[in-house]
């Protein structure tokens, strides 16, 4: 009987010995390095065409849909400034302060239309972070005396948009 038990034990050792659970571990460190990505690109320029008396009297509005492309991995601010105090045609000038601009889909705090100036004017405050966000701009002028008595022609000023994060 002892021999039988011994044989069974030996069997168990051989059989289960081959199924011994063995495991070990290795490690690696996963890193994501985030850097601030902040860019702004303008893909179009607003053109106001004064072709009727109503335009001279009451002004007009130009909507630039999705023409300002902003990328920011963080909530962002956006400001605009004019390179000059006036739009110029030869020696003739129209003050840029006759024009306003508003960004309508940036998220963040609502900001009313701002008059253009050589001093940066904030048009977005804490806009929603995102990559390649296409912002809608609404430019407007009320017309009036600043446009009267000026020779026909293309009056131009350069606008600069600056995006920043807090």
């Amino acid at each position, binding site marked *: 009987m002892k021999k039988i038990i011994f044989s069974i034990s030996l069997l168990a050792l051989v059989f289960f*010995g081959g199924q011994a659970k063995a*495991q070990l*571990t290795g490690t690696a460190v996963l*890193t994501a*390095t985030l850097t601030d990505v902040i860019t702004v690109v303008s893909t179009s320029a607003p053109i106001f065409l004064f072709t009727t008396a109503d335009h001279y009297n009451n002004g007009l509005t130009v909507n630039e849909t999705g023409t300002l492309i902003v990328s920011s991995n*963080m909530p962002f601010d956006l400001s605009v400034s004019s390179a000059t105090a006036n739009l110029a045609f030869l020696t003739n000038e129209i003050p840029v302060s006759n024009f306003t601009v508003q960004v309508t889909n940036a998220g963040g705090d609502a900001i009313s239309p701002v008059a253009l100036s050589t001093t940066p004017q904030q048009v977005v405050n804490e806009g929603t*972070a*995102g990559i390649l966000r296409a912002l809608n701009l609404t430019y407007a002028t009320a017309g009036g005396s600043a446009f009267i008595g000026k020779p026909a022609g293309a009056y131009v000023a350069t606008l600069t948009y600056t995006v920043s994060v807090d």
Partner: protein
Amino acid sequence: MKKLFPILCLNLVVLSVFADEPKAKIFNSKYAATENRIGILVVSNPTFVFNSGEAYNNGGSILQLDVVTVLNTLFRYDVDVRTTSSVLTHNLSSATIPVSNFQIRAVGAGGVNIGWVTLSSSNTKLVDEANVVVDSAIWGLEYRTFGGADFLNKPAGNYTTSIIFTVSTD
């Protein structure tokens, strides 16, 4: 003597089952477990750098060839993967990124094809029934992320977590 005969026969049956395996494998397996001869070593750490709109929008991938060494499994083996946390943690703040934004797959490990595995803090099978390793086997890893909203509104810096690879034999 007659009573013992069936037992001896049974022993012979057991031995014949393993006859196609080298004896050294069978009888050394216990030593492999007790002496920690079985093992896995990972020698490289993946770092994803988000420095462009493309990276934030679409993510990227990292292929690391020959960075995993598996030792002396003596049987077909599995590898599980998990992270020590469900998030990557910023080095300077409490900001986090879920590890579920990252995937991993074994490259050249053999065994049953599993493909991409989403990282989590729970063990997930990365390699299934890979071939026996008598000495060592070396294979690679590939990581990827698709970027997206979980990477936005996070302060710049390094976000890290540890990945644990566990090798086991059945």
